[in-house]
C-alpha cells in the first residue's frame, strides 16, 4: 500500500504539490488525473523516489521510498519520455534491469516481446515512438515489480496495443497483485481499466475514490417544471453545476441516486431524467467547480 501524508514540493517559487494526502491500495489500478500542470508527473516522481519531498511522507508498504533501495526494487517507473541507452537495444536494457531488479524475469521478457513482436536486438532509437512505448512496457512488466508507475504511457499506442497493454496489466493485477498507477489525460482509457482514481488540481488532491463509486454518486439531472426553478429550490442536493434555461433545469449533483431522485420528485417536475456521467464528464465538472473550465479561456 502507498500512503502519502501532507506531501509538499516546490520548484523555486512554484508550489508543485501542496500538502497532498492520499492512499493507494495494492492490487488495484489507480488512475491519476488532473489538469495540465496539476503536479501529476511531480507526484509520480516523488512516489518513485526520484524527487525528494520538501515536507510530508511517502510510505510504500510502510517504508520511506527516497533512497530506499529495498522499496525501489518493488517499483518501476515508466516516464512520459522514457530514457534508453544511446544506441542501446531492448536486450541491453533488459540486461541492465536484470542487474538491478531481483524479480526481473527473462522468460517474461521473451514472452512479452513475442506478443508485441519486437526485435530485442534492434536499436531502440530506430523504433517508432509507439514501439518504444511498447518496449518500455514490456521491460517494465518483465521486472515483475509490485508497483508500476506509468506516466502518460498509453499515449502513442495504437488502439490494439492499448487494449493489449490493458489486458496485460489486468492480468498482472490478478496473477501477482500488481498495483499500476497510471497518470493520463485520456480519461476514457482510465475509465476502462482503473478501479480507483485520484484527481489532482493546482498541486492539491481533490479526491481519491473508486471509479464505480464516483460514477454511481455523480449524476446529471435534466428536469422540466411548470415554472422556472432556482438552485436554491433543490435543497438537500450537493449540486456541482447548475444551469437554468427557462423552465428546464440541468445540474450535476453528487450523492446517492435514490436520494437525489426523491428530492427531485418532491418538486413535481413535468419531466426528469437522471443519467450517469463518464469519468471525463466528472473530471470536467470537478474542474469547473474549481474555476478551471473552457469559459475562462474565452476572450
Amino acid at each position, binding site marked *: 500500500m502507498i500512503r502519502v501524508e501532507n506531501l509538499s514540493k516546490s*520548484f523555486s517559487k512554484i508550489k508543485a504539490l501542496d500538502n497532498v494526502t492520499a492512499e493507494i491500495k495494492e492490487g488495484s489500478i489507480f488512475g491519476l488525473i488532473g489538469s495540465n500542470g496539476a503536479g501529476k508527473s511531480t507526484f509520480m*516522481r516523488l512516489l*518513485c*523516489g*526520484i*524527487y*525528494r519531498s520538501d515536507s510530508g511522507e511517502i510510505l510504500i508498504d510502510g517504508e520511506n521510498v527516497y*533512497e530506499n*533501495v*529495498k522499496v*525501489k*526494487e518493488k*517499483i*518501476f*517507473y515508466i*516516464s512520459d*519520455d*522514457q*530514457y534508453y*541507452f544511446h544506441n542501446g537495444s531492448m536486450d541491453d536494457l533488459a*540486461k*541492465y534491469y536484470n*542487474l*538491478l*531488479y531481483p524479480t526481473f524475469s527473462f522468460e517474461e521478457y521473451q514472452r512479452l516481446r513475442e506478443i508485441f513482436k519486437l526485435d530485442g536486438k534492434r536499436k531502440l532509437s530506430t523504433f517508432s515512438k509507439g514501439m518504444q512505448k511498447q518496449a518500455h512496457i514490456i521491460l517494465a512488466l518483465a521486472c515483475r515489480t509490485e508497483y508500476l508507475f506509468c506516466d502518460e504511457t498509453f499515449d502513442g499506442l495504437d488502439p490494439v496495443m492499448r487494449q493489449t497493454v490493458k489486458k496485460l496489466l489486468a492480468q498482472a493485477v490478478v496473477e501477482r497483485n500488481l498495483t499500476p498507477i497510471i497518470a493520463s489525460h485520456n480519461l476514457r482509457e482510465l475509465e476502462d481499466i482503473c478501479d480507483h482514481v485520484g484527481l489532482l488540481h493546482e498541486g492539491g488532491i481533490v479526491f481519491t475514490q473508486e471509479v464505480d463509486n464516483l460514477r454511481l454518486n455523480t449524476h446529471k439531472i435534466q428536469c422540466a417544471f411548470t415554472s422556472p426553478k432556482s438552485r436554491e429550490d433543490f435543497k438537500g442536493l450537493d449540486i456541482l453545476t447548475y444551469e437554468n434555461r427557462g423552465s428546464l433545469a440541468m445540474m450535476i449533483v453528487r450523492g446517492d441516486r435514490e436520494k437525489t431522485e426523491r428530492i427531485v420528485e418532491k418538486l413535481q417536475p413535468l419531466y426528469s431524467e437522471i443519467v450517469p456521467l463518464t469519468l471525463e464528464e466528472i473530471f470536467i465538472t470537478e474542474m469547473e467547480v474549481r474555476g478551471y473550465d473552457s469559459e475562462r479561456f474565452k476572450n
Partner: protein
Amino acid sequence: MTAKDLKTKRGLSFKYFSHSLRSYWWLGVIAGIVYGIAGPLVLWMGLASINNGAAEVLPMRYIQAVNEWFHMVGLISYYIIAMFLAVVFALVIWSYLHSKKQSNFYHSMPISRTALFINNTLVGIAINFIPLIIMYGLMILVGISYAGASAINWGWIVVHLLRMFLFFMLSYSLAVLAAQLTGTVLTQLGMSAVLHFGLMAFLAVGILAMQTFLSTFDGNAAFDKVWYLSPLTNFVYWVSTEQSVRLEGLYQTVDGLGVKWTLTILVITIAAFALAFYAYQKRHSEKAGQALLFDFTKPIVEFILMFCIATLAANAFLEISGKFFFLVGLVLFAVLTHMFCQVIFNKDFKAMFAAKKYLIGFLAILLLFFGGMYTDILGYNDYVPASEKISAIKIDLSEFDRYGNNNYGEDANIYTDGNDIELLLSIANQITDKGYYWRNSRLYGNELLEGMDSERVTLAYTYITSSGREIHRSYNSVPIDAFKADFTALYNRDSFKQVNYAWLINAKVRELSYFGVDSLNRTIYQQREVSAKLPYDYRWENDNNQFQAHYGEELLNALKQDIMNRKTSDLLEAPLYSISLEFKVSPEDDYSYNTRYRYYDVSVYPSDTFTLEVLAQLEAEGLFVTTDYAYLAENIGSLDIYQVDIERVGSIKNVLYGSYQYKDDVTELEPSLVKMQTVTDKAEIARVLALAINERQAERMSVFKDIREDIFIGLTFSNVVGSSSRWDMGLVLPSGAEI
C-alpha cells in the same frame, strides 16, 4: 554508512561495475590510442632513430635513451594525458546529470546514490588506468627490447605509476566535484577550470593588484606560494623541480618535502571526493540541466571571475591610459562579467541584468578593496615592525657589491645580530618616512623620486617576528645616496659580513672543485680567463692551465681575509678581477649539476691585497696575463669620446644594455642625441685611459659608486696584432671623473 551497509546496496556488485565498464569501452579505446601513441610508439620511434655512431656505442646510447625516458622525459606526456582525461571522463560519465530524462531514469532505479557515485567514480578510474597500465607495460617491453632489462629502473617505474595515479586522482576528484555542482556541459567545464585554477588565479590576480597599488608589497614572496594552489601548476612546478633535481626527486617521495607534498595532494583529493559525494547526495534530480545546482556557488563563482577579469582589464586600462581608466575598466568589466555569469547561470540572454544586488555588492567590495589600497588606509606601505617584535631580518644585500652575495637556501641572508637589525630597521624607517621607494607612476606619479640622481637598489625585507611569522616588504628603487651613512655602517660590520658572505666565509677548501679568474680591466676582445681544474672532480673542459690544489686553497683563504677587511670606501674603486668558484657540495650519486655543484662569483677590488698577491703568484707562473698591451697608449690610434644627450637617452647604460630603443651601440644613436670628439694625441689618450674603466668593470661597480651617465669612449687601435681597427669593448668614466 558502514561497509556492511554499502555491500547490501544494490549496484556495488562487481557485475554492475563491469556492466558500467563495458558500456564505456569506447572511452578506454580512445585512452589506449592516446597512451599508445604517446608512449610505446614514440619511444620505439625514438630508439629506432638512434642509428648513427659506431656499433659498439649503440647499446650504451640505447641504455641512456631508455634510462632518460623512464626517468621522466618520456613520461611527462602520460601525466598530462592522465590529467586531461580525468576531466574528459568526469564529463562523459556524469553527463546524465545534465539531462532531466537521464537523471530521472537513473534515480528511479533501485540503486542508491552512494552506490552509483562509487560505481561511476571507479569506472572513471578504471577506464583510465586499464589502458594506461597496458600501454605502460608495452612501453617497458619496447625499452627492454632495445636496451635490455637492466636498463629499466623498476623503482622509477613504480614511483611514476603511483605519481600518475596521484595526479590523475587529484584532477579527477576536482572534475567529479565540478560535475556534482553543475548541470550542463559548459558549466561543468567552467567549474572544472574554476576548481583547477580558481584559487590560484584569484590570489595571483590579487597579488598583481597589490603589487600595483601597494608599493612595498613583495609580490615575489607571495607568488612563490600561489603556484601550489593549482594542481596543474603544481604539476608543472614538480616536473621542473624533478627535471632539475633528477634522482633527488625520487627520494623526496619518502622523506622531506616529498612526503608533505604528497600528503597535501592526497588530502585535497580526498576532500574533493568527499565534497563531491556530499553534493551528489544533496543535489536535486529536478535541477538537472540547470547551470549551477547549488545557489550558494553562484556568487562565489561570479566573484572569482569578476575579480580576476575586472582587475586584469583595469590593470591593462591603467597601463594604457592612467588611473581614471583603471576605474572605467574595473567597473565596465565587473558589469560585463556579471552579465556573462547571469546569462550562463540562467541560460537566458535576457537575464543579463538579473541579480543586481550581487552586482552592486561586488562592485562595492571591489571599489573598497582598490580604494583602500590606493589610499593605503591600513598604512601597509609605511609599516615597519618595532625592533622588540622581531627576532631577525632576512634581506639579500648582494646589490652592495654586485656579484658578491650568492648565498643559497632558505636560511641564507638572515641577520640576527641586534645592531645589524637596528641598522636595517633604521634604513627601513627612513625609507618609509621619506617615501623613498618607487610607486606605480600611472597611479601615483614619480615625483618622489625625481631629482634624486643616485644609484638605486631594491631592498626586499622579510621581518621575522619572535613567533616566527614572516612580514614581507619590498622597497624598490631606493636611492643609495640618501642612506649612504647607514649602508656604510652596516657594510663595515663584521656580523653583517658573516651573513652576507656566509657562502665564502664558510666555504670548505676540500669542496672547491674549480676556480677561474677573469681580469676585468685588462681585456678588450673577450674574456681572457684563466681557469683551474682542481683534483677534486672531473670536468670536461679544456685541460690547459692546470693548477696545483694549493693555489685554490690560497685563493680561498685570501678572499676570506679580504672580504672581512673590506670597507665601503674600498668599493668606490672599480673591481679589477672577477673570480668564479665552483664547489661540489652533494654526494657522488647525485648526477644533477644543479644540486651537486654551487657556483659563486666575486669581484676583486684594488684593496683586496691578499687576493691580489695570490693572483700575482699565478702570474709569476706564467699562466696569467695581468697586463694587456692593447691598453697601452702607444697601441691606440685614437679615442672617440661620445657625449649623449642624457635628457633624452636617460643614461649611457640604457644604450650599453640595449634598453634605449633597442640600441646597444652608441653609434646607432641618431646624430642629434650624441656628440663625438676624436682624440689622437698620445698624452691625452694616456690621461683618459688612466681615468677610464671598461664596460665590464662598470657593470660590476658597487652601488656606492656610479659611472658618468653621459660619456662613452670608443677605441681605435693602431698596431695591435690580430685586432680589427674598430673596438669591441668601450670605456666609460666613473662618476666625478672629468676629461
